[in-house]
C-alpha cells in the first residue's frame, strides 16, 4: 500500500443527509480521478476510501476512526452538518489527521486538524444582510430558521449586527421551526402581516434543506412575491433547486461563495468535467462542491510543497497556500484554518440557476470567531507558531482547551 496515498471520504450515502452528501462524495471521486490523471501526488496515485456514516452522528466518529486508524488515510474530506463535524473532531484531533469540511457553518470553532473551506457567518450572512439593507432598502427583518445550532447562532450574530446598525427590536421577527417542517401556513401568514406594516421587509432564511420547498410554495400561494418580501437563503443552492418547482421562487435570493452560473473559464471547465464524470448533462454544481475543489487543491499543493503527506507537516504547510477558486479569484488558506472567498448574492431564476445580482469587490476572510457575539469577540485563531492556538483570548492572553 506504499505506492498509493489514501484519501478518506466521509459523507453520508444513506439516511436524511444522503440527499446533499452523495454529491460531495462523487465530487471527491472526480477530483481524485483528475488528479491521478495528472500523475497523482508526489508521484503516487491517490486512492479514495469511501465509507457511509449513514447520517448517524456517532457513526461519523466511528467511521472517521476507521479511516484514520485502519485505512491509514492521509486526509479526510467529509461531513455536512455541524454535528457530524463535532462528532469526528475529537477523533481527528486525537489521531492528528486532517479533515476538510466544505459546508457553510455557524463558526465558533477552529481546530488544529480541521480546515473549514465553507463559509463562516461573516462570509455569507453578514454580506447578505448588508445587501438587503443597502441595495434593497430593507427596514424590517424576519429571521426564520430551523431550530438547531447553525440558524440559532447565525441569527444571534445577525440580531446583534442589525441592532448595531440601528434596527429596532420590533422590526425583527425571529421564528424557529422543527426539522423537515412542512406546514408553513401560519408562519407565512405571520410574515405577511409583519411585512404589511408599510416598511420594506425581507426574510433571512436559515431554514434547513427539506423544509424549504413547502416554505417557498406557501409563500407563492399566499401571494407573497419576491418583490414584496424577498427571501435570502443560506442553505438553498443549485442542488436543492433542482428538486424544486422553481416557479414560486423566482426572484428570491441566496448568498453563497459560488454559483454555477458564474461565467469563468475555470468554472465552465469544472462544470464540463463534472457533467461528463457523472454522465448527466443536467447535473448542477454548487457551493460545497467548490469548497471541496478548493480544499482538495490546497491539500494537494500543500503536500507537494511539504513533500510528504504527514498530517502534522501538511498542517503547517497548507497555511498560506493559495489556489484559484471557481469564481475567478484566488482563495487562500488562512492561519485560522478558514479560507478567503468572495461573497455572491444570487437571484433564483426559473431554470433553477442563480443570477448574481451583487458581489463583494474582493475576497472576504473567513472569521472563526464572530465579532458580534459577546463570548467570542475577544477570541482569535492563529495556527502558526508561536501562537499555535485556535482560540486565543486576546484579553486574558490565554489559549484554552488545547490538547497539544
Amino acid at each position, binding site marked *: 500500500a506504499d505506492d498509493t496515498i489514501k484519501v478518506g471520504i466521509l459523507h453520508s450515502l444513506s439516511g436524511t443527509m444522503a440527499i446533499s452528501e452523495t454529491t460531495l462524495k462523487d465530487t471527491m471521486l472526480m477530483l481524485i480521478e483528475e488528479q491521478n490523471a495528472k500523475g497523482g501526488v508526489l508521484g503516487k496515485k491517490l486512492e479514495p476510501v469511501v465509507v457511509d456514516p449513514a447520517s448517524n452522528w456517532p457513526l461519523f466518529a466511528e467511521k472517521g476512526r476507521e479511516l484514520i486508524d485502519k485505512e491509514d488515510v492521509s486526509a479526510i474530506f467529509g461531513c455536512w452538518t455541524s454535528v457530524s463535524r463535532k462528532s469526528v473532531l475529537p477523533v481527528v484531533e486525537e489521531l492528528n489527521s486532517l479533515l476538510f469540511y466544505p459546508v457553510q457553518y455557524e463558526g465558533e470553532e477552529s481546530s488544529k486538524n480541521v480546515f473549514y473551506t465553507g463559509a463562516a457567518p461573516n462570509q455569507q450572512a453578514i454580506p447578505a444582510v448588508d445587501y438587503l439593507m443597502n441595495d434593497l432598502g430593507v427596514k424590517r427583518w424576519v429571521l426564520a430558521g430551523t431550530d438547531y445550532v447553525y440558524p440559532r447562532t447565525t441569527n444571534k450574530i445577525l440580531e446583534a449586527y442589525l441592532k448595531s446598525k440601528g434596527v429596532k427590536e420590533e422590526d425583527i421577527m425571529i421564528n424557529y421551526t422543527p426539522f423537515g417542517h412542512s*406546514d408553513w401556513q401560519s408562519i407565512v401568514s405571520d410574515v405577511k402581516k409583519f411585512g404589511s406594516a408599510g416598511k420594506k421587509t425581507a426574510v433571512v432564511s436559515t431554514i434547513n434543506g427539506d423544509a424549504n420547498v413547502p416554505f417557498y410554495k406557501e409563500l407563492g400561494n399566499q401571494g407573497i412575491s419576491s418583490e414584496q418580501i424577498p427571501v435570502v437563503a443560506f442553505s438553498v443552492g443549485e442542488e436543492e433547486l433542482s428538486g424544486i418547482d422553481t416557479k414560486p421562487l423566482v426572484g428570491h435570493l441566496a448568498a453563497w461563495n459560488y454559483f454555477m452560473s458564474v461565467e469563468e473559464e475555470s468554472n465552465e471547465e469544472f462544470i464540463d468535467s463534472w457533467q461528463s464524470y457523472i454522465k448527466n448533462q443536467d447535473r448542477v454544481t454548487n457551493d460545497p462542491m467548490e469548497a471541496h475543489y478548493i480544499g482538495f487543491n490546497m491539500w494537494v499543493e500543500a503536500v507537494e510543497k511539504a513533500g510528504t503527506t504527514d498530517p502534522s507537516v501538511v498542517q503547517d504547510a497548507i497555511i498560506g497556500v493559495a489556489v484559484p477558486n471557481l469564481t475567478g479569484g484566488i482563495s487562500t488558506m488562512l492561519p485560522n484554518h478558514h479560507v478567503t472567498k468572495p461573497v455572491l448574492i444570487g437571484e433564483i431564476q426559473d431554470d433553477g440557476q442563480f443570477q448574481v*445580482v451583487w458581489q463583494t469587490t474582493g475576497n472576504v476572510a473567513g472569521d472563526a470567531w464572530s465579532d458580534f457575539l459577546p463570548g467570542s469577540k475577544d477570541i482569535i485563531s492563529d495556527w502558526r507558531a508561536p501562537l499555535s492556538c485556535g482560540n486565543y483570548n486576546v484579553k486574558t492572553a490565554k489559549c484554552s482547551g488545547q490538547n497539544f
Partner: protein
Amino acid sequence: MFCLRTHDLAKCRSKFNFINIVILLAGIMCSSAVWSDVLFDQSIDKLLGKNFKSVTQGVELLAQSDDERAEQVLQILLAGDLYRLKKEKRLVTIKEEKGKGYLVTDVLESGKIYEVSSKRKIKRVAINNKLRTKIKAAIAQIQLTDKDPGKRSAAVISLFDVVDDNQIVLFEKMYEQEKNEKVRSLIASGIAIGNLKTGSVVEKIAAIKKLEDSLEPSVRNALQATVDSDNDKSVVAAATKALGKIDQKIDNYALMETLFFGLSLGSVLVLAAIGLAITFGVMGVINMAHGELIMLGAYTTYVIQLIMPNNIGASLFVAVPAAFLVSGLVGVAIERGVIRHLYGRPLETLLATFGLSLILQQAVRTVFSPLNRSVETPDWMSGALEINPVFSITYNRLYIIIFCLIVFAMLFFVLKKTTLGLKVRAVSQNRAMARAMGVRSEWVDALTFGLGSGVAGVAGVALSQLTNVGPNLGQAYIIDSFMVVVFGGVGNLWGTLVAGMSLGVANKVLEPVSGAVLAKILVLIFIILFIQKKPRGLFPQKGRGAEG
C-alpha cells in the same frame, strides 16, 4: 381611445419615473416618429452585456427609446424569456429544444432562426428584483386604465401607500370617470387616505369614517400613523376607535384563518393516515412501509409530469389513478410476498415492513437519485382565493381539503357498503372462521392491503403538491400517521378523520402562541395524556369483545 386616456393620465404630473416610461411607451405607440434608433441600438448593446449593471442600463435606455420593438423586448425580458447568444451577440428567444441544444428566434429580426448546439451557448438576460419591480410597476400604471376592473382595483390599491396631494387629484379625476362600483369605492378610500394625511380636521374625521370598514393593510397603516402622530385629539380618538374596529375584524378573520389552516393541516394528516387506517386499523398490519407507499405515489406524480410535460394542469388527474395503481400493486406485492406469511403475528409485520421501507427508500434513491424531484404545481392549484385583504384561502389547500373528504367518502363507502368491508373485518377478527364461512381470505387480504396502499399512493399525489418529493418523504409522515390512527381509535374510519382534523386544528391554534416546535411537542404530550383518559382512542371499539 387607449392612447387618449394614456395621454390624459400622462398630463398629470407624477414624481414616479416609471410613469415617464409609460409616457414614452405611449408615445411610441401613438406617434410614428422614429427618432431614437441610436438609443435603441445602444440599449441592445447594453442588454448583451455580461453583468447586471449593464443590463439595467440597457433597460433604462430601452425605456427612453421609442422603437416599436422596445415594448416587446421589455415584455420578453420581464417574462424572463430573453437570451443572448454568447458568441454571436444576438438577443434571442427559445423556440424549441433540439437535441442537446435549441432552435432560437432572433428577437430583433423576427423570422430569423439560429440553431445552437449546446445549452450553455446561450445565456438568459438577467433581471433582478429591482428591475422587475420597475417593470411591473409600469404595467400596474398602465392597468389603471385596463378594461378589467379587477386589474384596475389592484392598480388603485398599489397606490394606497403613496397617496399625496397629486395622487388625490388624480384619484378624484378617475373617480368621476369610473363606472364600476367596487373600483369607485376603492378610489374613494384612496382619496380618504390622502385626506387623512393632509386634510383638515373635519376632512380627517370624515375620512376615518370612510375608512373604518376597510381591511387594506395600507389603510390600517395610515390610521396607525394618524394615531401615532396626529395632533388633534378628536382625530386621534376617532382613528383609535376605527383602528379598534378594524383590529376586531382582523382578529375575527385571523380566527377563521387559523381554523382553515388547522383543517388543511388536518386533511393532510388524514390523507396520510387513511390508508394506514385500513392496513393497520382494519387488517392489523403494523405497516412501517406505509410512508414509502405514499412516497411512491408522489414519485408517480413526478413520472406522470415527465411523460406529459405540456399538460401539467391535467397531469394530476392522471396521477391520482396512476398512483393508486402503482402503490396499490406494490401493496399487493408486499402482501403476497411478505405479509401473508405473518398473519396472526402482527408485531412481526412491523419488523418485516420496517425492512421493506428501507429497501423501498434505497430503491428510490437508486432509481431516481437521492435528490428531491421537482413536481410542478398546476396553475389551477396555485394562488389564493382572496376573500378580503386579510383573509384568503390558498387554492392548493382548499383542493386538498376537498380531495381528502372525497377520498374519505369513497373509502367509507367501500368499507361500509360493499361486502369487501365486511369480509375484511371478518378475516381480521377470526381468520379461520372466516375461511370456514367461505371467505377467500387470501384474496380479501390482498385486495384490502392493495386498497390501503393505493390510498396511500393517492395521498402521495396530494403531498407532492405541498412538500418535497424525495426518498425521505415517507419517513416524515409515518409517525404522524400512526399517531392519527391510534388517537382516533384503531379500526374506526371516522376516528381517523376526526383525529386528523382535531390534531391539525390544535397544532395551528397552538403554533402562534408557542411557536412551531413547542406546538408539536405540546400536541404529542396532549396525545399521551389523552390516551390515559381514553385508552382506546377517540372512538374506541366498545363492548365485551374489545377488552381481551
